């Protein structure tokens, strides 16, 4: 087991892009070797050692035996955990955009809030956001057919607009409220919103959305199919979006 502890040396103002911070990149490396990996502060390349205090305990042969603890606020550090395949990242604070983008495996836990595009285009693994998440949880990149394809994202607080846009697989659970248009244009996967939301499932062709709170506006493109019970709780089931001949299932309490 290798534990790498990163403590930011300052509160970054200009955002830092640090796609190098992954268990895959850290596995088997010493603190010096990790410190030599590069992140970008705006347009300026900076070795991680300039940005973080780095401590390494133990060693690992592969990513699945690596745990990265980030102690402090990284709300201006983007792309942490990008494309990681295994291992664990624990962020004891807030995190910036695109955390866990293209993630394939492993686990990221964010104790604070996650900025937009957490889990963008992820295909596997698990992300837990204990605070709130901003826009586009598990969504895609502009113009791409698919957002999230696999894995699971859980947001314990609220999420903002466009949760799971273009989602093709995997699962998103929002324990709090979600903003407008969750599951827009999704083609698969499952979204559970335990709080309230607005206009879910527009242009959904496949997939499932379960809203346990209130839907402020239901899209006027859903066929009501009656009452169905999920885990013993009764929901009204809708099928749509009819405009795109969708067979997506929308359950509203």
């Amino acid at each position, binding site marked *: 087991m290798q534990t790498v502890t990163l403590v930011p040396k300052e509160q970054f*103002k*200009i*955002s830092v*892009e640090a796609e190098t911070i992954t268990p895959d990149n850290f596995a088997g490396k010493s603190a010096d070797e990790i410190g030599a990996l590069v992140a*970008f*502060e*705006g*347009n*300026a390349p900076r070795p991680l050692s300039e940005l973080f205090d780095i401590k390494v305990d133990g060693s690992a042969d592969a990513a699945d035996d690596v745990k990265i603890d980030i102690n402090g606020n990284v709300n*201006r550090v983007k792309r942490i955990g990008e494309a990681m395949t295994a291992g664990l990242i624990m962020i004891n604070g807030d995190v910036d*955009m*695109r955390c866990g983008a293209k993630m394939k495996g492993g686990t990221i836990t964010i104790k604070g809030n996650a900025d*937009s*595009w957490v889990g963008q285009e992820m295909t596997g693994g698990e992300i837990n956001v204990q605070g709130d998440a901003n*826009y*586009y949880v598990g969504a895609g*990149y*502009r*113009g791409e057919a698919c957002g999230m394809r696999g894995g699971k994202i859980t947001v314990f607080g609220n999420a903002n607009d466009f949760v799971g846009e273009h989602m093709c697989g995997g699962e998103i659970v929002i324990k709090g409220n979600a903003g*407008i*248009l969750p599951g*827009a*244009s999704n083609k698969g996967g499952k979204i559970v919103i335990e709080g309230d939301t607005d*206009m879910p499932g*527009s*242009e959904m062709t496949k997939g499932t959305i379960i809203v346990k709170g209130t839907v402020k*506006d239901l*899209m*006027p*493109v*859903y*066929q*009501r199919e009656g009452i169905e019970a999920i885990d013993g709780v009764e929901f009204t089931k809708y099928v*749509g*979006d*009819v*405009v795109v001949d969708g067979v997506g299932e929308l359950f509203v309490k």
Partner: protein
Amino acid sequence: MIIKDVLCPFCGCLCDDLTVEVEDNKVIDVQHACKIGTSKIKGHDRIKAPMMRDDKNGEFREVSYDEAINESAKILANSKRPLLYGWASGVCEMMKKGVLLNEEVGGIIDNTASVCHGPSALGVQEKGLPTGTLGQFANRADLVVFWGCNPVQAHPRHMSRYSVFNKGFFAGKGRKSRKIVVFDVRKTDTAEMADEYVQVNPGEDYMVMSALRAIIADKADVVPDSVGGVPKEKLVELGEALKGAKFGIVYFGMGLTQSRGKYKNIDNAVSLITELNAHGKHSIIPMRGHYNVTGFGQVCAWETGFVNAVDMSRGIPYYNPGETCSNDLLMREEIDSAMVIAGDAGAHFPAQSIARMGKVPVIQVDPFHNPTTEMANIVIPTKVSGVELEGTAYRMDSVSLRMRKIVDVDFPSDEEVLDKIIAKVREIKGASS
């Protein structure tokens, strides 16, 4: 001297039939232009010389162009995250230089579409854009929809030149050949002259479009009695009118791009139009604001692959509105300098954004004193493109035309200023590497 076939450097209509009379290098008369175009060509008080100040609350002092340019280059070259914003009131030739400068300084280049039709591009990326040139609509349209736009106020000659009153090959009776429908949240001057005004609740256009799509797909049974404040029977009637048109055109504006849902409104509108093409011919087009805001999108796309909001900090272009647009960056306080050129961030960004711009050095390149000037440290006055400088501009339908020069002035062009800044930046970066 009478100059004919002059292009108007104000709005996206890019009218090219103006006649301007010039005497002693002064514009004395402008014919055929609207009130706004006339006002622009006749001109206003302008900044006379480059100015600088260290403290934004202090007084400006006049400086030489060289000093202002060198100082600007120094700021940009030493920035980690400079923002280069504006670009709409210039010609394409200067925009190319802007993209190059952005490469040199590793910054973000963003244009005024960011607070205008940027979301339209995002909608196009979702669904495409079935459109055409304005003459196509002028010659053919028998159903004209203005959705969330108000050309009477914003594009004064649009309705007489392209969309409503003009005759066309297949629309020989002009206004009488066409049915005009306006969707808006309030009864605008444009709505006043429409055959039909559909009042939509603010922020509910998206649902109205989805309901129309369902109706057109013969799935009206799922549509509730009222959507977005519009009764179902009205929506059914509109659906029939849309389906029955031989050639329908939707002109849309910031009523869609700036209201709830933003690009999703455009996304949905494009789908509506695409689906209507199974019945008649239908097109859709954004009503672009500045005369060459469309040109920036074109130039930026062919230079970088992306339409605006291009982040060059990593040496390759990256685009992601929500992350790389001016207001995203300003609200996150992550830029460390800004150049505002051929656009007025000060007048058109939310106060909080401007307050954040106030905390970093700001370079303004513009002929006129405006709210950005109030926030600037360096001000570099330039020629007024399309009046004092010729060059290329793209009309709202992406037809490019060559702007004419009407009068001569001594000010440098934007392009010349940018060339010098680029040269200086290269010198500074070369010395430090």
